[in-house]
């Protein structure tokens, strides 16, 4: 496929747009105000229509001014009324966005029946079609994005404080009100410029989806922004290509659906909070419990038959685990030099002896603790100790030892090693 020159500006503006919307979107995400973006994207419509009615031409600068002023007005109304506690935030957000959009629809229907003849194409702002992007539009996007990035980098420390600890920010002698005002102004400007390529409803996706994806990959603020920007750009480029290659697919939705695909993948396979990481943590935990179980059984077997080697069948009987599982665990333990494992015979190394001794000690200490302090009958002790022995830390162990005066025998009259 040959790239037309206009494809290049579309791609470059997509790059700028995705990086700067990820920066602002991450700020919104961490301030837990992701839906403010939604209000802004809907509230630009009346402004655009008013600008058209006043100046009677489709001029990007007047649209920018008009759209951003109504968007700022809407944001200000939401924040002011929320501060005054007139209504709860969700009602304010939902009502403001729909009422502003309704007023926009009203103007739009008024414009459409005017006899001026140049009104077609205002709708472009609502659905967005990147292929109609002109060089001028691309330049505006680039200028606004560069301004956002420069301000963000220069004021990084202030922004970070303002995002994560607004109370602390209030105690500092720094004009955070200006930070907030600038943030809103740039948010509105960016929305206005981005609308033409992705459309009204889907511009809010550019703010919400990339930081949500980054939530599954990075824990730090900066790292999250970098991941969000990268993902957003790749998805945008993919969406743009898709809409150029396949007929009847609009750009904005194509970008959002590709972002959604990435979100689903991150949800399943991400590094943090994802399904995969949860299953992995669960498996690691289960492995640890099984390893400790095997070690403890080894110690008990050696204690009862007084030998140095135990074979795998005895272990199978004692632990009731399958042979393959036991073998797997034994190999792991061998790697950590806790046991020697050959020919289905198992021997504990000195380090293994210490480790297994510790588990048995914890088990028996806990049994003693339950019977002394909670006066549980003897047959109730074992189950509880079986669970808790994996969780007792050295500190708790030391405390148990002190409060029970360094005991020698457990309730079943076995030695505490």
């Amino acid at each position, binding site marked *: 496929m040959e790239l037309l020159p206009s494809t290049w500006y579309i791609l470059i503006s997509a790059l700028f747009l995705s990086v700067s919307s990820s920066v602002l979107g991450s700020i919104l995400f961490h301030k837990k105000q992701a839906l403010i973006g939604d209000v802004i994207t809907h509230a630009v419509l009346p402004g655009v229509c008013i600008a058209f009615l006043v100046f009677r031409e489709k001029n990007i600068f007047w649209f920018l001014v008009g759209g951003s002023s109504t968007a700022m007005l809407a944001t200000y109304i939401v924040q002011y009324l929320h501060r*005054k506690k007139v209504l709860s935030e969700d009602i304010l957000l*939902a*009502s403001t966005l*729909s009422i502003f959009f*309704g*007023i926009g629809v*009203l103007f739009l229907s008024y414009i459409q029946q005017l006899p001026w003849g140049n009104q077609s194409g205002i709708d472009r702002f609502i659905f967005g079609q990147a292929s109609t992007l002109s060089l001028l539009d691309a330049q505006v996007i680039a200028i606004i994005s560069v301004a956002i990035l420069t301000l963000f980098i220069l004021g990084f420390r202030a922004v970070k404080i303002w995002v994560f600890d607004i109370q602390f920010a209030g105690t500092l002698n720094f004009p955070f009100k200006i930070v907030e005002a600038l943030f809103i102004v740039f948010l509105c400007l960016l929305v206005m410029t981005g609308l033409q390529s992705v459309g009204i409803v889907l511009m809010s996706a550019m703010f919400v989806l990339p930081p949500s994806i980054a939530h599954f990959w990075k824990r730090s603020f900066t790292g999250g922004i970098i991941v969000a920007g990268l993902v957003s750009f790749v998805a945008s480029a993919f969406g743009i290509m898709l809409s150029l290659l396949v007929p009847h697919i609009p750009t904005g939705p194509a970008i959002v659906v590709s972002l959604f695909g990435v979100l689903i993948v991150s949800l399943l396979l991400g590094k943090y909070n994802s399904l995969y990481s949860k299953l992995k943590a669960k498996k690691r935990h289960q492995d640890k419990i099984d390893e400790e179980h095997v070690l403890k059984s080894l110690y008990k077997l050696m204690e009862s038959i007084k030998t140095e080697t135990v074979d795998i069948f005895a272990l199978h009987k004692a632990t009731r685990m399958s042979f393959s599982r036991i073998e797997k665990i034994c190999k792991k333990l061998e790697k950590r030099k806790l046991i020697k494992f050959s020919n289905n015979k198992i021997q504990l190394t000195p380090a293994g002896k210490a480790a297994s001794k510790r588990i048995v000690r914890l088990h028996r200490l806990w049994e003693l603790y339950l019977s002394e302090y909670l006066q549980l009958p003897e047959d109730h002790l074992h189950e509880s100790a079986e669970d808790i022995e994996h969780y007792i830390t050295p500190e708790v162990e030391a405390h148990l030892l002190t409060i029970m005066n360094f005991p020698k025998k457990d309730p079943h009259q076995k030695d505490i090693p």
Partner: protein
Amino acid sequence: MISDWWIIVNSALTAACCGILGSFIILRRMSMLVDAISHAVLPGIVIAYLFTESLQSIWLLIGAGLSGFATVWLIESIAKRYNLHEDASIGSIYTSMFALGIILISSLAFRVDLDQECVLYGEVSHTLFDVLVINGKVAGPKAFYLLLGIFIINLAFVLLNYKQLKVMSFDGVFASTIGISTSILHYTLMGLVSFTTVASFEMVGSILVIAYFTALPAIAYLFSYSLSAMLRLCILTGILCAVSGYFIALWWGVSVSGATVLSMGICLLVAIFVSPKKGLLKPWLYAKSK
């Protein structure tokens, strides 16, 4: 003219349908979930429309209901299981569903007559062309009967579960401790919201319907001290806004749904200033009368 009557009646009925459900939604602080549902029913509508090629079939309601359920479930399970803040989860899911719907419309429905403008803005007067004919007699637009049906279902739901809904709206935890199955009620409510959205989307569009669900009950909320008063006031305000919206539209020659939402906006603005509960002018208006 007779068609003017139908416009006002349909518009008022839509407001009433949305208002009674919306009251419980704003009390439960879930307004943005309505925003999500109203956008996210789109793929369901489009898929159902592709099969039936009609905007008034029962399949449309079923398709939309299913995609509404799917959205609510996705949003809630992602927020709960994957530690994503609810705002972010709502924003991510509904935009994606909406995008999916738009792609479906523009890639498949170019053969059939369903466009983005119709979905986003809606127009009351469009609904008048499709009339129900019984025994050769014209018995009014189909949309009216659909809305009437939805209104009766919504009203029945609210009246039958009034006590449970009331407890759940004001104290959800208490409601579940005394044995009210809050999750069934919650999902039924959300299902009805999806149905109502679809029934009214042809008239008001998928974004303006949010105003019917949230702004209207918010006006009633600011002027009432009990739930039943709030519901009654909500229906009354809905009718008022529908009538005034119609006349504004007639006067300026603009879209009826836009004008109705404008009059809701004006009412809400007035309510925010003069409400006896929380109004901004409360200290000046009500303090001296003591």
